[in-house]
């Protein structure tokens, strides 16, 4: 496999993802370097379109951080996000793009360690999958 630093877009909701990222920092854990943190008020704000656009414009992978079921501050945002993700996965299957590139990970406000482990694992997975075959200009 070509050695490259996979570009990951991490959607972090203000209630779980973002505080966990802060906690990861305060625990001095390493967040992989090509991770772009996108702050949203709730995972429910993340439109299906954004997930696809991320891949279209060159990201190798996307992680959607959302709250656990029955723990969303806005009650249903995490479920909405999951539904949109399933829809995107079906589209990706149809066009032959690896589903594993986009993933949803559930965490809480205090899950600093889980966030970092997920991003590190994703980086490794994407290194194995290879760079995004369908980013613009390729």
């Amino acid at each position, binding site marked *: 496999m070509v050695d490259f630093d996979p570009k990951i877009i991490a959607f972090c909701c203000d209630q779980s993802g973002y505080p966990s990222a802060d906690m990861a920092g305060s625990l001095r854990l390493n967040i992989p370097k090509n991770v772009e943190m996108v702050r949203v008020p709730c995972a429910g704000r993340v439109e299906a379109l954004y997930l696809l656009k991320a891949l279209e414009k060159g990201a190798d992978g996307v992680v959607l951080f959302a709250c656990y079921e029955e723990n969303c501050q806005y009650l249903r945002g995490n479920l909405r996000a999951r539904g949109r993700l399933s829809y995107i996965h079906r589209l990706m299957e149809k066009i032959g793009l690896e589903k594993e590139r986009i993933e949803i990970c559930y965490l809480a406000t205090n899950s600093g*360690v889980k966030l970092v482990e997920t991003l590190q694992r994703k980086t490794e997975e994407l290194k194995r999958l290879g760079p995004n075959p369908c980013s613009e200009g390729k």
Partner: protein
Amino acid sequence: MLEKEVLIIGGGIAGITVALELSQFEIPVLLIEKNPSIGGLASTFCCKASESCNKCFACVVDKRIVEIHQKRNIQCLTRTEISGIRKNGKKFEVTLKQGRERIDLQVPAIVMAVGIDPYDATQKGEYGYGRYLDVITAKDLDEMLRYQGKLVRPSNGEFPTRLAFFQCVGSRDESIGNLYCSQVCCAYALRLIRAIRYQYPKVKVCFFYMDIQPAGPSFESFLKSCREDQGIRFIRSLPSKIYYSGASHLLKVRVPDPQTGEVMEEPFELIVLSVGMVLSQGARSLVQWLGLHYTEDGFIEASSSQEGVFVAGACSGPKDIDRTIIHAKGTALEVYQFLKGRD
């Protein structure tokens, strides 16, 4: 001399909740905490979700801590303790000590939110806490998961696959005089177990208990999923002693087999003691100075005989985070009614 309406002693979830509620009435509040940061015991808890939220409320505490920093009329002083309180007419004269500094304060109302300490498991010598490295309390385990994110045997850093949980350590125990149920430990331990087994399916747990206490409206379905989990063995008996085998470096416990009734010695790599709650050590002097009373179980009597003194949270009796928040909101209401009634 600081001018405040309410002094809240204790920056745990109870104190924070009372402060947040009172700030909505624009009542100036001073919250003091003896530790370097606020949040109390509950802020050291890890998220205990398995495939979905298990309602442990640990994340709720983290959110409240952020909220409290946003409020204009709440002043938080950490590393601060009380060196003296005296009642002077309708007000309390309080001397605070922050390091070497001394701060004087006069307030009409005081809220005791001093919280609880986990029961000192070294008192149960037969379990070997403090002697055997691999016997830890549930709180030790919680912190290990929150701050390190991994499960290890303290003795050698290896990954343990055979765990045992002992419930009711320090509660419901006539021999030590704790004739109360600490109420939260069953749900707390089971949630920890489910979270651990979700992340590490190879871990097998033996759950030693007396009676499983419910917690909240989702508990029935949660308990059902625990009982259906093949990796958790429920054994309704509390072991009397933990043995240590120097040869295998394993801990041994005498376990009755539920089918045959025979008692066998089983090895465990990590034993977790679910310790109960006792009133915070530091509360004693405050109780004395304020002329408060103890309940028969050694907590602070909430129906305070002292005018202007209110009690919030687990220091008035065992509570989980959920009930603590509810009670604390009620305490804030009492304080508000008291302050308004004086005007």
